[in-house]
């Protein structure tokens, strides 16, 4: 990220949102809302003297709200650019930061700013979010956490500086249960496999086991899906390290109100016994969902989505990088659930795909386009309303003009025209009538 930020040809707009996209490959016009951080980016040097004086603490989003940050603070330690922003909805406007800032960078009058960019090609890489449903008492029982929260807890720069502590009493849990496939591989919730969670459970359970060898870790799974290079070996090493893997589905989970321990009931596959177990912490591996940003960018750019809500690629097997719109490419989990190495491969593929037309400076497309006829046109202009790409306009003499680049050759205008004045190259009405006549011979 830092390297990208320092690259002379890369401009990173953080704390910004794409609000509108028009145009076509080579000539996209993109409107970006640069949200106001109330700190002048060119003046701030990130010294943090404003953070020191700020009296307000708010939940730290980066730490999954497990720790607190100041109202004026850096998003996280390695954030790029390393400058502060003010969460205005929580600010009490004491202006202590204004006095503390030697650079006079704090500007409470800053407004959101819409900037317009001329863009050649677009790569959408808006990622995924975690399913946060109430399964297994998540959100009700304090010691039921998800993998990302555990990631933060065991991170050296996290809320507990890397010491494993459970949320209820900040003591180290010895008996930990991992539950895989929470809200995923479930036809009533999210039918897909989220791909990464098996390995995520392996990684985190193994980390805990090696740091605290007296831990007792049980992992309940439906199937361990450790496909891919080195993953099966990783799974084997976890089993050798003493982590217990049980095939089954957890049926019930209850909290002991005094100790806040969790009493878990499950039936291991292949046995008739029902296991009742008391554990000190439960870690869920929830489904991956299209991120808020993915949902939003699909709406803004009018992008096609797969039934699962992830962005639709040109072809699921043969071209998972392009979209149906020339010049727009996909990378990472915005397109579907995937592991890091696949996301990296796809990102490099997307960068190369975008580089081809950019380097050539030209793009070849099939000219299946709407062709209006001025003589037949009755000027009802129904086609203008019907066109999903706003490709049809009217010139001074009232005749139709089709923008041959905006037009994608869907033929909706040809179907709706009452006077048959607009037709589609290679897909003409007369051709269709001939096809129908040939397919359905009279008297056959």
């Amino acid at each position, binding site marked *: 990220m830092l390297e990208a930020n320092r690259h002379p040809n890369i401009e990173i707009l953080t704390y910004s949102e794409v609000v509108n996209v028009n145009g076509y490959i080579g000539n996209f016009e993109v409107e970006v809302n640069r949200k106001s951080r109330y700190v002048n980016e060119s003046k701030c040097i990130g010294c943090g003297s404003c953070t020191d004086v700020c009296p307000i603490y708010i939940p730290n989003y980066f730490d999954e709200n497990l720790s607190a940050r100041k109202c004026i603070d850096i998003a996280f330690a390695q954030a790029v650019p390393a400058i502060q922003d003010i969460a205005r909805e929580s600010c009490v406007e004491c202006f202590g930061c204004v006095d503390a800032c030697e650079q006079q960078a704090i500007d409470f009058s800053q407004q959101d700013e819409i900037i317009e960019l001329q863009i050649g090609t677009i790569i959408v890489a808006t990622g995924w979010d975690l399913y946060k449903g109430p399964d297994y008492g998540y959100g009700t029982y304090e010691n039921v956490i998800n993998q990302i929260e555990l990631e933060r807890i065991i991170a050296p720069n996290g809320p507990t500086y890397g010491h494993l502590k459970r949320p209820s009493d900040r003591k180290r849990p010895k008996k930990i249960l991992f539950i895989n496939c929470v809200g995923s591989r479930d036809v009533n919730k999210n039918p897909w496999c989220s791909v990464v969670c098996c390995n995520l459970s392996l990684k985190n359970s193994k980390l805990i086991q090696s740091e605290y060898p007296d831990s007792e870790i049980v992992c309940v799974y439906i199937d361990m899906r450790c496909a891919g290079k080195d993953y099966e070996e990783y799974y084997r090493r976890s089993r050798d390290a003493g982590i217990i893997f049980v095939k089954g589905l957890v049926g019930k989970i209850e909290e002991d109100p005094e100790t806040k321990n969790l009493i878990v009931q499950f039936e291991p596959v292949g046995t008739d016994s029902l296991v009742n177990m008391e554990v000190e912490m439960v870690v869920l591996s929830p489904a991956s969902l299209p991120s808020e940003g993915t949902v939003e960018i699909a709406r803004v750019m009018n992008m096609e989505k797969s039934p699962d809500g992830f962005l639709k690629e040109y072809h699921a097997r043969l071209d998972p990088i392009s979209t149906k719109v020339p010049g727009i490419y996909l990378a990472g989990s915005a397109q579907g659930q995937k592991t890091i190495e696949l996301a990296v491969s796809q990102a490099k593929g997307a960068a190369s795909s975008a580089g081809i037309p950019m380097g050539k400076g030209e793009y070849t497309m099939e000219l*299946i386009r709407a062709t209006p006829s001025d003589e037949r046109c009755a000027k009802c202009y129904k086609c203008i309303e*019907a066109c*999903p790409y706003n490709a049809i306009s009217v010139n001074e003499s009232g005749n139709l003009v089709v923008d041959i680049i905006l037009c994608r*050759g*869907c*033929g*909706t205008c*040809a*179907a*709706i025209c009452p006077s048959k004045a607009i037709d*589609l190259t290679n*897909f003409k*009405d007369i051709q*269709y*009538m001939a*096809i*129908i*006549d040939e*397919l*359905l*011979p*009279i008297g*056959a």
Partner: protein
Amino acid sequence: MAGTIRAQYPASIRTVLVPCTGRIGSDMVMRTFGRGADGVMIVG
């Protein structure tokens, strides 16, 4: 898609490829009925 999942369909079905379902006008549908088709299925 039908091919990928090995779906079977009767041999009496005739398919006409369109660039987009929006291309299909009522005149095209009426023509098929006029030529004796029992039904038209528009699949997108």
